[in-house]
């Protein structure tokens, strides 16, 4: 299935193309020459620590922030040249969904529908049904909880059946049932309706469950784009093992012969080595053969987070 999808995305035209986009706020470069494509039928996860530039990129795609340079092409239309055609195939939520609080959810949707072509009253009922707000549709939005606001925001984003759906931190404020619903809706949109979905988050587990591809960003630079499986693979295969020994220096000498650049850390009585699972056996055998004692071998936590931290340069920098 994964392979099928990959081949499909290669063949089809990208729904969203971001080319060489740069944005500077004052002296700070928020987004630095970022380029990537988003294909119909995939859920793309945008991963990065706070302040990495995720939201700025999303705001540029949504038209809130003007890029200093670079091109954004939505559904084949350059946003600069064909603004309305480009924007009519995009939908989404940036940060928190904000509606006209004094008006009812239905009226909010009706007002939004008026700005799009071909959104019928039935479609409004349909999306309200989809996000489970049919009963409360005539209440003023100010009476809604944050989770309900997220839902109505999603309804608005889906209202005009966009080709590109962009959600910034969509699970904020949602209860587990809501998160589950959201995940289902996104997967259905992408895999059944062929919508290109882009989700930003700093919650890796969410990403793992939702996304097909992940783009990792830090300090405004797009560091890597890989499929979720590649990332997991990377994380699974090469783990860090901590070998406890009375003489780490000796152990280092022994292992240097074969795994010179794999040793990541040498402490008082431990030695960390990054190594594939199948090689650990041989590694231990070497040590024992050379006369080093082994007090313990421990596999350090290795998951997506490790890979993520590794890719983003060894740590989240809070700015």
């Amino acid at each position, binding site marked *: 299935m994964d392979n099928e999808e990959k081949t499909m995305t290669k063949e089809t035209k990208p729904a969203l193309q971001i080319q060489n986009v740069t944005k500077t706020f004052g002296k700070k470069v928020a987004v630095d020459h970022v380029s990537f494509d988003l294909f119909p039928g995939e859920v793309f996860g945008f991963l990065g620590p706070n302040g990495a530039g995720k939201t700025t990129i999303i705001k540029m795609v*949504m038209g809130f922030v*003007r890029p200093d340079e670079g091109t954004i092409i939505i559904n084949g239309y350059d946003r600069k040249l064909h603004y309305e055609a*480009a924007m009519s195939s995009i939908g989404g939520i940036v940060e928190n969904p*904000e509606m*006209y609080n004094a008006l009812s959810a239905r009226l909010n949707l009706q007002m*939004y529908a008026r*700005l799009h072509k071909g959104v019928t009253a039935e479609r409004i009922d349909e999306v309200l049904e989809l996000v489970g707000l049919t009963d409360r549709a005539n209440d003023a939005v100010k009476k809604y909880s944050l989770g309900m606001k997220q839902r109505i925001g999603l309804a608005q984003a889906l209202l005009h059946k966009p080709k590109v759906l962009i959600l910034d931190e969509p699970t904020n404020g949602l209860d587990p049932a809501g998160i589950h619903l959201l995940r289902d809706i996104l997967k259905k949109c992408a895999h059944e309706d062929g919508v290109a979905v882009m989700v930003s988050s700093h919650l890796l587990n969410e990403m793992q469950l939702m996304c097909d591809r992940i783009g990792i960003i830090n300090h405004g630079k797009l560091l890597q784009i890989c499929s979720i499986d590649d990332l997991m693979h990377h994380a699974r295969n090469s783990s860090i093992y901590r070998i406890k020994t009375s003489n780490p220096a000796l152990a280092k000498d022994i292992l240097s012969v074969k795994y010179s650049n794999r040793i990541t850390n040498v402490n008082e009585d431990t030695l960390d080595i990054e190594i594939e699972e199948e090689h650990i056996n041989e590694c231990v055998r070497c040590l024992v053969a050379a006369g080093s004692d082994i007090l313990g071998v421990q596999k350090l936590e290795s998951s997506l987070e490790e890979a993520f931290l590794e890719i983003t340069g060894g740590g989240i920098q809070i700015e």
Partner: protein
Amino acid sequence: MSKILALYENEMIKLSRKISAWILVFLMTMTSVLLPLIVKRLYRNGYEVSTSVSFSKSEVQTYRDSLSESLGDTNQYVEHETIRFNVNSEVVELFATKINLEDSDVRDYSLLSCYNAILANYDFENYPISDSFLSFHALVSYIDINHSLCNLNTDPFSERDNAWYELYRETTDSLDLAKQALFNHDCHAMAILVEDQGSSLNGISPDIWQRIATIDPYGKLSLDDGMQIVDALEQCKKYKNNLAMEVDEINGSYVPLTIERKTQIENSLLILDYQITNNKLPTNRAQVSTLARQFSQKAARFLLIILLIIIAGSSISQEMATGSIKSLIIAPVKRWKIFVAKLMAIFTWMLAGSVLITTLSTLSTSVCLGASNLLPYYYVSGGHVRQMPHIVFAFLYFLVDNISLFVYILTAFMISCLTKNTGISVGVSTGLVLSNGITSTIMDMMNHQTWIDFLPFSNLDLSGKIFPYLRLIGYMNSGEAGPFGVPEYNTLPLSFSLVYLAVLVVILLLTAYDGFNRRDIQ
């Protein structure tokens, strides 16, 4: 275009849900409906005084009886005679208040003889003294002349020379004329009398009397109307004088007359002449009506300005603050369309508010004070005086009024776009509106320096420049109050003000659009 209309429709929905807006609309409605009523109550004495004083038949009889009693013998009070008597002072005072004469005049014993004569012969019932311009003035001169005659009669015979006899003859002739004017209601006689006396009588000069005699030969004019015509004629004389000397009078000092001013003054004279000849001068009641309408419209308009400043000052910044602007930006509409739709919605409210105010204040004034008292606007076109029906004038006037409103709204909108702060934009714009009043006061104090005319404030109110003859129908412009005035003094022509305002509006619009369009939404 359809996108703009859709956005506009959305904006109107949003505005219609603002409770603060509806509260102000309610206040505006109450102000424009109730103020004419209040003005009517306050000024009722102002326009009803002339009809409230009259003598009934029985009252006249009472005066006659009490006077006869105090004189003892009724046959004694004959004209041309000097009779000294003691009269009941209460009756004198009563009489004095009834015909609106100064106390000191009445107390004079010799005047009393005249009153007696009048009481004996004058038809008070059909020609109430205080209700007729001619009768009142004829009576006063009759009293005056009779007084002089009495004084002549007291001169001892030994001192009566030829000059005395000449004077006596002249005085009796004058008295005959005064009698003719008073009892036969002959205004020409009055004119001749004043002409003969050679000086002004009661402050009204001979030429004005002659003019009145041609307008109203049979003394039909009421006292108020007559006084109004006198005022108007005095004003005409003054302006004719100024025209002849080629000077202009501003705040009491004389300056050279400009060509534009000259035309305005000449036209004002034409209109005044038309009004005087056709008895179209604003009556007291009409002036109160004008005051009521102007007052209610101005007060309601102030509320409208506040309402529109709140709407305009919050329309962008509030959406920015609550974040609801996002759903507009995400929508497939260009930003300039959002900008235009918002302005359209605001101006729809402006027009609707102005129409509401104008209609309500006009309606309320015509109900309270009578529709006929809402005067048409007179203007001169092709050398002829023309009139514009009041309702047409009222709506044109409100359009002109809206020019300044437009500038205030754009200012609030611009500040809202730039600062994205509702408080600052509403506060600063309201401050500007309020300081406009203060500025005009300061301008008056500065004795009209030329540079003041170049400030935006001085060019905001165009009503005086577009309707220069407003004061001829009782409108009060800033500065001098009262009717019959020629236009306010403006050194700058209308075309300058229009260009100035156009430039100002373009700058405001461009700055606002730049602030809205170029900036990022965070």
